[in-house]
């Protein structure tokens, strides 16, 4: 059993082993630490722990030392000897490994003092980065399985449902349906067999909220599901997770085993009447299988295609039985709701959207990573305070929310609170919580084309509007990006979008036109420039862009020529340079590199 509260003479070193940090070599750091500590003569008793994702992937691998509360960034295996000798042995800080605040230029000792973490409020992510995901004792030491104990021995199933209804929890997977109402609908149906499903088929490009939870704190998901099973009297549960998430599959597998051994899963859980077990189902990576009816078809062994939901899964779900299906993050909130009580949990957030939401903040923002904030936090706070602003001091143009079928919100709406209803009203959606920041060098027509291209490959192809609509939209948008297109095409694009919204079978198809509709709503001028003037104002669409150097601001520094991949730029030192249009491939690298904004587009 590992100590959670560190005694004064002992230290604990937490190495972030989330997927981002692992990719940057955190496993070597962890192993090096263990090896060197075993052989070191430092007389401080130290324990090393591999944790889940801390969310600050930009600065990984992260190493935290407690109780000193020191956070080291971008640590490499070669730094380990110094960390042990100086920091663990003598309590000295290694300045070079500390985070340097770009505003104050000061080194910062702990991540707790950094805006990225200060503004966050961790509920679903409360344990991640603090515990070893492979240790059930670690989870238990942080009130793990307390909520389960509470419901089994002090609450009736109906009371649990009521508590969840009172909390106002809405599904974190995208739809935002009230979780408690869903459970109640399931219990209202007469049946001898009911199922619980955890939807871990996170598929949005750039989203990794659910992955981090499954990898970093699998027991909270399992505990949430057992509480759900008790509330709706289910006997079996399934966690549907995409097979690409190998670490999540592994950690969930260990967690289920351990939970069985401790009597949290299986027959007569903790001496109660509840018997319930969980099975992992590995998905093949189809985006559409995140849609609940397609997901259930996939569990049943059929092709992952959705069906009309005029009869809800709570009535006829998996194998025709009443089924409650909730997203990973939703399940992760449940133990907290039970432990702290619905009122306490609901004290944060907005009127219609209670609690917190996890976002994966990516794109042209300084601090990319995983953040959890109260519902109703503004986009400005998330991007500028937590995210630290836009990369390379460029201007923010838009924020894409809600994954591929979400929408683009323009910079003018930055003070909009982020919650289910505001995002929908703005023509986007919460989705599962992707936030992609775009700067002024982003072409919105090209962005729409990118998402439509993704969806065209991921649509299941069952219903006509989604399958054929996406095919047509992709063709029209690709034409626009090449300066081909007419007003009639634009009209047909809008008609197709509306038809898809109204007539598609599932939520994927009904929202698949959002990237087009939202960019048309806020950036129509850009579409018209592509169609009427064969011009891409952002200088992205290659067929419509020509770069030239304005001799006035050009200092002849030669940086553009150095970075040009095709040697299209020439000029004497300290004299204005010139781009040879015949050689130029219009990649825009010169424009990105220029410190004097001398590279222009026409």
């Amino acid at each position: 059993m590992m100590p959670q509260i560190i005694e004064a003479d002992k230290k604990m070193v937490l190495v972030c082993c989330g997927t981002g940090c692992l990719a940057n070599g955190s496993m070597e750091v962890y192993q090096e630490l263990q090896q060197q500590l075993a052989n070191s003569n430092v007389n401080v008793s130290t324990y090393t722990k591999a944790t889940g994702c801390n969310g600050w992937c930009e600065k990984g691998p992260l190493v935290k030392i407690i109780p000193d509360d020191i956070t080291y960034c971008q640590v490499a295996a070669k730094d380990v000897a110094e960390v042990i000798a100086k920091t663990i042995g003598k309590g000295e800080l290694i300045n070079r490994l500390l985070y340097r605040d770009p505003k104050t230029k000061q080194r910062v000792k702990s991540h707790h003092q950094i805006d990225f973490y200060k503004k966050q409020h961790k509920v679903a992510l409360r344990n991640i980065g603090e515990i070893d995901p492979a240790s059930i004792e670690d989870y238990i030491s942080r009130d793990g399985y307390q909520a389960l104990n509470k419901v089994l021995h002090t609450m009736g199933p109906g009371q649990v449902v009521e508590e969840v209804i009172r909390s106002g929890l809405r599904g974190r997977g995208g739809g935002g349906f009230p979780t408690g109402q869903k459970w109640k609908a399931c219990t209202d149906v007469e049946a001898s067999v009911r199922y619980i499903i955890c939807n871990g088929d996170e598929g949005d490009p750039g989203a990794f909220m659910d992955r981090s939870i499954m990898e970093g704190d699998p027991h909270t998901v399992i505990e949430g599901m057992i509480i759900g099973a008790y509330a709706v009297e289910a006997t079996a549960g399934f966690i549907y997770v995409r097979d690409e998430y190998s670490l999540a599959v592994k950690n969930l597998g260990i967690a289920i085993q351990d939970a069985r051994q401790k009597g949290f899963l299986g027959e007569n859980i903790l001496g109660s009447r509840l018997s319930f077990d969980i099975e992992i189902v590995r998905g093949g990576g189809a985006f559409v299988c995140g849609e609940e009816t397609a997901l259930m078809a996939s569990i049943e062994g059929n092709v992952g295609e959705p069906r009309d939901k005029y009869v809800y899964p709570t009535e006829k779900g998996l194998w025709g039985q009443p089924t409650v299906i909730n997203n990973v993050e939703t399940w992760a909130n449940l133990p907290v709701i039970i432990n702290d009580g619905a009122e306490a949990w609901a004290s944060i957030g907005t009127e219609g959207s209670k609690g917190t939401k996890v976002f994966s903040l990516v794109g042209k923002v300084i601090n990319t990573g995983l953040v959890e904030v109260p519902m109703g936090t503004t986009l400005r706070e998330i991007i500028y305070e937590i995210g630290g602003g836009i990369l390379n001091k460029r201007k923010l143009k838009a924020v894409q929310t809600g994954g591929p079928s979400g929408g683009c919100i323009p910079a003018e709406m930055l003070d909009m609170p982020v919650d289910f209803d505001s995002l929908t009203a703005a023509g986007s959606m919460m989705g599962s919580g992707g936030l992609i920041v775009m700067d002024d060098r982003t072409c919105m027509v090209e962005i729409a084309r990118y998402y439509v291209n993704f969806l065209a490959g991921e649509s299941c192809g069952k219903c006509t509007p989604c399958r054929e609509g996406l095919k047509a939209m992709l063709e029209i948008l690709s034409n626009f990006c090449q300066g081909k297109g007419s007003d009639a095409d634009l009209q047909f694009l809008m008609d197709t979008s509306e038809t898809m919204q109204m007539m598609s079978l599932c939520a994927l198809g009904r929202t698949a036109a959002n990237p087009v509709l939202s960019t048309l709503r806020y950036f129509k001028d850009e579409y018209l420039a592509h169609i009427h003037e064969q011009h891409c104002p952002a200088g992205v669409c290659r067929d419509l862009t020509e770069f030239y150097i304005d001799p006035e601001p050009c200092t002849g520094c030669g940086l553009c020529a150095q970075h040009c991949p095709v040697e299209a730029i020439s000029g004497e030192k300290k004299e204005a340079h010139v781009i040879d249009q015949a050689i130029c491939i219009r990649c825009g690298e010169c424009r990105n590199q220029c410190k004097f904004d001398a590279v222009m587009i026409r």
Partner: protein
Amino acid sequence: MKIMIDQQVLEVNPGVTILEAARQHGIHIPTLCYHEAFGGQGMCRMCMVEVKTSHSRKVVAACTYPVQSGIEVQTSTPEIEKGRRTIVALLYRNAPDSGFMQKLYTDYDCPENGLAVNNGERCILCRLCVRACEEIGSSAISAVLRGTEKRIGTPFDEASAVCIGCAACANICPTEAIAVEQTDQDRTIWNRTFTMVQCRSCGRSFATREQLDYISQKTGLAGLDLEVCDLCRKKKLAAKIEQFAR
């Protein structure tokens, strides 16, 4: 129970879909993927109708939406007609060679658009062929691949071992998209060639050997009894009836 479709109050049985209720009362709702033998598939979305319940107004697929007491259905609104027109226009791109789709394209007065047309193609992916094959019990074909790549085929496009060459798929296809090459001796369909059997009575080639074997296996009838074509069978039955009537 009572429901209302296009301002008409109708008495319908619980459990039926809006489409079935409408057809029973002679009200037309357009469909492409529906067949009375199989029920609704909810795929083509041509049958979308507006439904008003006590608490909501929504657009639903008539072929899969079960009737509820008191609902009011509009089978056609300007928005729905526009949607159907877009669906036809989109499908027509993939099936410009089909007379069926050409007629629909004209009937719906589809708007001009600059989209490419796949000349020579006919399939609109209504999957009636797949359903027919399933019902026969072979399941030799299915919708394969995903998204915009989706098409109908046998596994890996190889000759299917379970196909009996009955051509039910081709017969049910509304756009004549399934190729069947047939002579008196053999029939080639889905990359496999089948030997034809001649009717013992009239000599006409009427079924494949595999088809008759399959029927024999399912019904327990001897192979020889089955080697008479449907027309001759009818004639024989008619003769019997005539005899009986006298």
